[in-house]
């Protein structure tokens, strides 16, 4: 796949490809604006690693919006992504500031619980097959329609996609419940 750079056509093409779920277009976008976006964080008391994290998170937000059909671009893609980066970094700075003012012990306990739960679920998701994972991710993260999921994964129709999604979700549910009691997941 060949991308030209710095023209409106390319921006449009990239945006269209991302909306269609082309991950190569996301990689292209990531490389294209990496310096510009990470500079924002680095020049605002962030580290290179934090800058990369923020930029990746911003790009994922952009991806999710584009994939779910909720993206309405009123400016250039770079401006839009830049503003997401700004918001994310501001939030992160606030979080850091708050954390330094709070009692750290309670925060650690809370974080440990959350991390443990996430670990359990991640382990169960790993036990699912690749198609199951894709169906669930496309449905819950990208918020794709059943028709798009069917097209993307080569299912015969939306009903097949719907059934597949139902079965996969049920399987995940059983896996999690089989290993841990329901109360482990209640706050």
């Amino acid at each position: 796949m060949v991308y030209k750079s710095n023209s409106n056509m390319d921006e449009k093409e990239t945006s269209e490809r991302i909306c269609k779920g082309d991950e190569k277009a996301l990689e292209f976008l990531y490389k294209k604006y990496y310096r510009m976006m990470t500079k924002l964080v680095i020049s605002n008391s962030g580290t290179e690693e934090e800058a990369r994290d923020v930029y990746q998170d911003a790009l994922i937000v952009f991806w999710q919006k584009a994939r779910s059909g909720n993206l309405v671009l009123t400016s250039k893609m770079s401006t839009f992504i830049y503003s997401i980066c700004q918001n994310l970094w501001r939030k992160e700075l606030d979080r850091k500031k708050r954390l330094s003012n709070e009692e750290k012990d309670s925060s650690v306990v809370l974080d440990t619980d959350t991390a443990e739960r996430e670990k359990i679920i991640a382990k169960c998701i790993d036990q699912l097959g690749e198609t199951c994972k894709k169906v669930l991710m496309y449905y819950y993260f990208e918020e794709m329609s059943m028709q798009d999921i069917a097209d993307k994964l080569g299912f015969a129709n939306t009903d097949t996609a719907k059934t597949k999604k139902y079965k996969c979700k049920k399987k995940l549910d059983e896996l999690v419940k089989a290993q841990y009691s329901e109360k482990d997941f209640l706050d």
Partner: protein
Amino acid sequence: MAIERDLELLDDLISNRLTGEEKEAFEQRLESDPTLKNEYQLQQKLVEGIRNARVAELKTMLNNTPIPPASIGQSLLAKVAAWTVVSGIIATGIYFLLNKDQKEVVENNNKTVVENKVASEDTNKTVTQPSTTPALEEKSAVEKTEKKVVEVEKSSNKKNKKAFTDATRKTSSTDVAQRPNVFDPTGEDQSESNTRPDQPQAQIGTESITEVKASKLEVKMIDNDRKYTFHYQFKDGKILLYGSFERNLYEILEFFSDGKRTAFLYYKDNYYLLNEDDDKIKPLVVINNPMLLDKLKEFRSKSK
């Protein structure tokens, strides 16, 4: 235990697929049904886990994407620096190329002159050789001449001296005609008896007709020319020196012989011939001939 329909509604709520009214109605039910609420919390965490897994997957993909290094051409400063370096390399290359060409021309000239001398000497010898000279001596003379030619190829300075010495013994009109009219101070170390009257080099050795003095030529500096950075030009009776010469001391040495002037530039311990045959801008070429250099040093010390 939640019934199937409730699970579907829960799923739609978590995946943002309920309309405003449906969402509001179902949320009210959640508040009144603790079992359904517990299930909602569990399902919410599962979906959150799925979303996190997808984020992790995308992040892994991005982390594996190679980031191109910051391009050199991105900043204006870097562009200017790159152009300066490239220009410098090209200019240096041209300078050394020209320098080499000039050197080769000078060396070739010297060689031609000496070889011509030797050839003419050989001819003259045949003509002027006394009939009483034994054949062996003639052979020896020819051998010597050949040896001289070989020596010329080895060291042009040594040959010059030898050739001049030999040349003074015999006069050849062809030699005079072929000899380029270039001043050579090396002729000065020859004794008067060895001097050829028709050669400017030889005449320089006689103090009465050769004058070495500090130059009265008007010199003008042009240090802002982009094209010519170490060049000279004779124009309107002035010497124009192209380059930043004022940073260091320089001297112009003039030699007069038969009313003809030959000028040299002394700059940074090097000597350069200033050829005023035309008013073209020419590069300054350093003189490497050790004998000529010795003479120039000697004259320069005298003129101080």
